[in-house]
């Protein structure tokens, strides 16, 4: 890999880390995990359930918010502020810029998730006083959450490569919501007829599929997950990310920087 990708990624990471908004969001997520302890105490016997459900939901939601709010500005803000001029007038290929930005943001989210996960496990330890074997499922759920972040990052980046931050945020958030109902969307498509069915199916397969990546309740209920699902979800997330990034590269490669 070209060293420039790593350098751009490192700088993107540095930018995110120096942003105060990030810390507010992480603090919020940790607060929510902590609050789970109290909610758990109110409803007897389901402390673990509440801590895992609420904690992982907080990690997922705040991560998505961070991914979208950092992701949407990655390219468009650099164009708007003209910081890109002095970068692209160096031996940096445009695709390297996109890929570097993606890795920077993905890295930021992995680190964030790590800290938020510590919060969840801390809360879990507080209520259970020990870790048991089914807690490994929480790690799987967290892994899927990170996969979800990768997809959202790449989508935010894709939108950022051709539209304004506000529009990108709207697009990315809508896709997040639609993607959470992806399976139902494919169901809808199955009920349609003729040309509509054709279009609906195409759209249903094109939106990101987050339903299979959400295993929070399974983890909370200690239901085992098949290794098949883990493998397929991983591959799916990687291919989807590659697809969105290729799209971003194709658009950005052609863009005139006003």
């Amino acid at each position, binding site marked *: 890999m070209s060293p420039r990708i790593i350098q751009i990624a490192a700088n993107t990471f540095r930018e995110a880390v120096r942003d105060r908004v990030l810390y507010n969001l992480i603090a919020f997520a940790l607060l929510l995990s902590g609050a789970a302890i109290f909610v758990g105490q109110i409803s007897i016997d389901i402390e673990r359930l509440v801590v895992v459900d609420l904690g992982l939901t907080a990690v997922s939601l705040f991560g998505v918010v961070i991914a979208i709010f950092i992701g949407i500005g990655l390219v468009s803000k650099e164009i708007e502020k003209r910081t890109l001029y002095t970068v692209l007038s160096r031996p940096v*290929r*445009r*695709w390297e810029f996109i890929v570097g930005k993606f890795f920077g943001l993905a890295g930021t989210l992995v680190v964030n998730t790590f800290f938020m996960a510590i919060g969840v496990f801390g809360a879990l330890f507080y209520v259970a006083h020990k870790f048991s074997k089914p807690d490994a499922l929480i790690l799987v759920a967290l892994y899927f959450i990170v996969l979800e972040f990768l997809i959202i990052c790449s989508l935010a980046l894709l939108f950022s490569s051709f539209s304004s931050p506000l529009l990108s945020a709207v697009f990315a958030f809508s896709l997040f919501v639609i993607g959470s*109902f992806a*399976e*139902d969307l*494919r*169901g*809808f498509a*199955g*009920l349609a007829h003729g040309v509509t069915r054709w279009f609906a199916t195409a759209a249903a*397969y*094109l939106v990101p*599929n987050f*339903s*299979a990546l959400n295993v929070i*309740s*399974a983890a909370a209920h200690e239901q085992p997950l*098949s290794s*098949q*699902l883990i493998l*397929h*979800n991983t*591959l*799916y997330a990687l*291919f*989807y990310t*590659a*697809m969105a990034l*290729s*799209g971003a*590269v*194709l658009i950005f*490669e052609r863009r005139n920087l006003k």
Partner: protein
Amino acid sequence: MIPRKMNGRKRTTVIAAGCMAVSLVACVLLLRHIDEIRPKATIEDALYVNSPKMIKRASLGFDGLMACIYWTRTVQYFGHRHYDRAHTYNELAPLLEITTTLDPYMIPAYEFGASFLAPKPPGGAGEPARAIHLMEYGIAHNPDNWHLYYDLGFVYYTELKDYRKAAEVFERGSKVPDAHPFMKIMAAQMALHAGDFATSRMLWSATYESSHETNIRQNAIEHLRSLRVDEDVTSLQALVTQFGERTGRLPASISELAAAAHLRAVPVDPDGNPYQLSAKGQVLVQNPDDFPFITKGTPPGYIPAPPKFHTKSSD
């Protein structure tokens, strides 16, 4: 692979476009596989919360959309179970109840409930009481829709054989403005000819013609096909009896029977296969599995297979 002479931008374009196409195909294939390995998980997730009121609250005012989602899930659930020839439809009632609580005006959900909630397994969920409850809920919210009365009367007629109740409901329905004229005929028919093939056929034909839902229409077609078999077997069996009374023996074959009864040709079932005659003089249908709802013409001890819609006789 990529010509070296190509300038950088073109090469990036080619590679990125290729990468995008490959990824897209991979994504679709993986999704299909993921859907295969977790169809059960989906419906379990969907019913993780199964209090309709709770779901209505949680949908934050988007209950119309949620109703559509649950309706899709219902149809999918039924389709999957049907495809798998499963014998039970335990989640059908809760799914329909959630759907109609979210949107009480979703007429297809009631039609669906009447058609598939009431019949005994394997044809349906075997919960006529819940079906009736669902229909009355629907009528309460949509008192001016005659279809709902029709569907409810239908449940009373076919599943509970409660002809008095059925007549009552058809009567109620016929008073709705713009009700189809056959509602009145139906009410009268219930009193006079309850249990007739003709009445049944009329009912199923009406179902077929008034519904837009594929599953329901297919179901009506299956019933109509089975009804014809039942009618044919009944009349052929009567001819066998006549033959016996006249000759003192059983006909050796169906063609002998046909010739003796002056039938124009050897009688065939709706699939075009001739009916058969057992050694004991019983009229049989060639492939009983193709007619899931027949009550006659099956060999002794025959266990009906779960119904599966036939594409060859659609529409």
